[in-house]
């Protein structure tokens, strides 16, 4: 009985809720024949990019048409509205349209020029069609200045190490959203970024790819394989210090192309220092070539360096695209830097007291053996499958993060590694949160129009020349990345390069992406703060008692960095263009 009563209650609720809708439908039908005008169109910005959430209003003979639902554009910038007017209103009436969105200038009311009669139905209703597109111009609102200030402050906090970069980005993102909802609710000029837009701006492909690769590397490093490779380098070199330096560079470059540079360096540095101390030479003579090779190797692939991951995801470039366009120039750069460092450290290498090579090999074999062979086999096979999936991801239309995630998940399942321990210790949460917050900060700059202003400026500076644009992107990225974190720099540059690709003749094939990748990744070699791997190397060397000063780093690294960027310039202008 109770159930029946409940059923009746909900049924009556349904009829009460449905009643107004039904009445409205009946009202519309009861009012007699109507003119129906369907208006559609696309709204873009001055760069031709569609603008979403633009409110569109209609006026008939100067009177605003009140619609049941506000008309606004979709993600593709499309809008479509259906106006129900008294029979005979059209085609004689003057129908006007206007569009507006915070951070854009509201358009003037524009009269629809061509209203075409489509059909008349049996009831006498007449349908009309019209189309009108808009180009909205940016407005410099308070939101623009706030977003600009927040971006600059975040950059400054990171560049001058005034606070941890994750906290700096977190603070910036929070301020943008807080102002949007605190002030923007009352004054749309303060709307910088909505929560929905902020969530949409987070590139989860980047986040999941980084997270999954951290897990895979976290498992692989438990096997001792990195240290074992350094021991193998010593064994292969057979006491020849030049050969040893070269092999260490190549191993570091190859490992960094597939794993993150920082972990590669972190694992290879202790064994390198041990070998150097045994040879009685300054470990810096091995560490500097290694870290240089790490940054060069990391540039060669989609997963080698965070800027490449960001570029690949944003521009939908595949693993194979990166290998085809960057691996050869990276290999050339590696060879040049190898020769340079061997000449630079020739005197140090000559001083090496090689001594009893076989004893040293036996010692290293004992100290740096593979600690878990089963895990290494499992990890090696998984890594191979993940790389195969990376190669195939373009054909499979599969995001690279999916390949890495399935690899990480399967590897953890078969190796029975403690998932909680992995999540606690191996995933660098501050880095992932940094990326998430950074995407929001850059989205704020993009939504408020700052990125568009910069993009227009770069376009004007290059005067539409592809060569000038390549040179600007490559060299500005390289110089900037030597002194500021290349991750926020790349995040800011992504929409700028995307725009340049659409307006500069010849850039549509994506050459500017390669200029950005080469500049952002290789430029970091220039100073000790240019790349995280450099910081780890300097810090580890410092803790070992081998001091590399800021200026000493520049003295050592500036020339090979310059050489590699010049090589990249030729590569882009001669081979890629």
């Amino acid at each position, binding site marked *: 009985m109770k159930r029946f009563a409940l059923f009746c209650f909900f049924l009556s609720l349904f009829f009460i809720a449905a009643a107004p809708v039904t009445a409205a439908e009946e009202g519309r039908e009861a009012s007699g024949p109507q003119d129906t005008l369907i208006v559609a169109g696309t709204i873009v910005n001055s760069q031709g990019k569609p603008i979403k959430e633009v409110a569109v209003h209609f006026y008939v003979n100067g009177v605003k048409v009140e619609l049941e639902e506000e008309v606004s554009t979709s993600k593709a910038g499309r809008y479509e509205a259906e106006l129900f007017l008294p029979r005979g209103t059209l085609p004689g009436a003057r129908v006007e349209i206007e569009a507006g969105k915070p951070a854009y200038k509201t358009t003037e009311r524009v009269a629809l020029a061509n209203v075409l009669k489509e059909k008349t139905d049996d009831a006498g209703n007449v349908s009309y069609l019209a189309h009108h597109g808009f180009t909205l111009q940016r407005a410099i609102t308070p939101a623009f200045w706030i977003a600009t200030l927040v971006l600059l402050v975040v950059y400054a906090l*990171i560049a001058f*190490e005034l606070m*941890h*970069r*994750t906290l700096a980005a977190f603070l910036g993102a929070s301020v943008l959203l807080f102002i949007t909802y605190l002030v923007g609710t009352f004054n749309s000029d303060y709307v910088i970024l909505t929560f929905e837009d902020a969530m949409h701006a987070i590139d989860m492909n980047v986040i999941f790819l980084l997270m999954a690769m951290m897990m895979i590397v976290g498992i692989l490093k438990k096997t001792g394989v990195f240290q074992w490779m350094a021991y193998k380098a010593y064994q292969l070199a057979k006491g020849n210090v030049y050969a040893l330096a070269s092999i260490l560079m190549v191993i570091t470059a190859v490992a960094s192309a597939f794993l*993150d540079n*920082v*972990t590669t360096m*972190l*694992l290879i*540095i*202790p064994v390198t*220092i*041990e070998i150097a*101390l045994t040879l009685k030479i300054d*470990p810096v003579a091995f560490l500097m070539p290694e870290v240089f090779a790490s940054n060069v190797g990391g540039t060669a692939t989609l997963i080698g360096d*965070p800027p490449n991951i960001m570029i690949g995801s944003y521009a939908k470039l595949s693993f194979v695209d990166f290998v085809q366009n960057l691996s050869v120039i990276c290999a050339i750069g590696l060879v040049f830097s190898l020769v340079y460092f061997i000449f630079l450290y020739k005197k140090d290498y000559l001083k090496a007291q090689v001594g009893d090579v076989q004893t040293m090999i036996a010692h290293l074999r004992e100290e740096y053996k593979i600690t878990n062979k089963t895990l290494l086999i499992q990890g090696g096979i998984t890594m191979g499958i993940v790389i195969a999936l990376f190669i195939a991801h373009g054909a499979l239309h599969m995001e690279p993060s999916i390949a890495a995630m399935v690899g990480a998940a399967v590897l953890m399942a078969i190796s029975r590694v403690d998932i909680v321990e992995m999540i606690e*210790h*191996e995933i*660098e949460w*501050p*880095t992932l949160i940094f990326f998430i917050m950074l995407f929001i900060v850059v989205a704020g700059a993009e939504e408020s129009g700052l990125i568009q202003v910069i993009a227009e400026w770069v376009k004007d500076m290059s005067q539409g020349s592809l060569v000038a644009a390549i040179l600007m992107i490559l060299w500005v990225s390289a110089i900037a990345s030597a002194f500021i974190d290349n991750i926020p720099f790349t995040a800011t540059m992504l929409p700028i390069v995307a725009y340049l690709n659409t307006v500069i003749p010849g850039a549509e094939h994506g050459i500017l992406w390669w200029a950005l990748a080469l500049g952002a990744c290789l430029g970091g070699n220039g100073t000790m*703060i240019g790349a*995280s791997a450099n*910081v*780890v190397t300097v*810090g*580890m060397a*410092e*803790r*070992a*008692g*081998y*001091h590399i*000063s*800021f*200026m000493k780093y520049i003295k050592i690294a500036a020339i090979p960095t310059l050489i590699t960027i010049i090589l990249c310039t030729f590569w882009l202008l001669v081979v890629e263009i």
Partner: protein
Amino acid sequence: MSYKSIVCGVTGSAHAQKAALKAAVMARENDAQLIYVYVVDTDFFRKGIAVELSSHSITESLQHLGTHILGVAEQLALTQGVTPKKIVKTGRILEALQEVVKEEKADLLVLGHEERTFFEKVLFKGDVESHVEELKKKTGIDVSVVR
């Protein structure tokens, strides 16, 4: 003045190795206990310049490095006929050294001199000399810096 327990902070640098040797000589002359300490200080990574690494990974790597560096210093001490006690301590250098001095009831702390530029002093939070007085005050023992 004679010493009964000597603590020496070591790294792989030439100055630190020199300090390790001098501490070994003093330990032999005073018939004192010799303690070599390597401090795993990840403060530079956490606060100096942010990197994509947890302190856990860095600590593991530096502990391994420290063990090797202590081994090299041990060889020096053995040349003087002294067998040192080796400690790898995790924490901030100054605090860690104070703790070891207290735990080992040391009466002398020996450190190697490290040359620093102004920029590096800011980046690495000071140098050995700038902390000698602080160490003397906090530990209440002699602090010797070997150049």
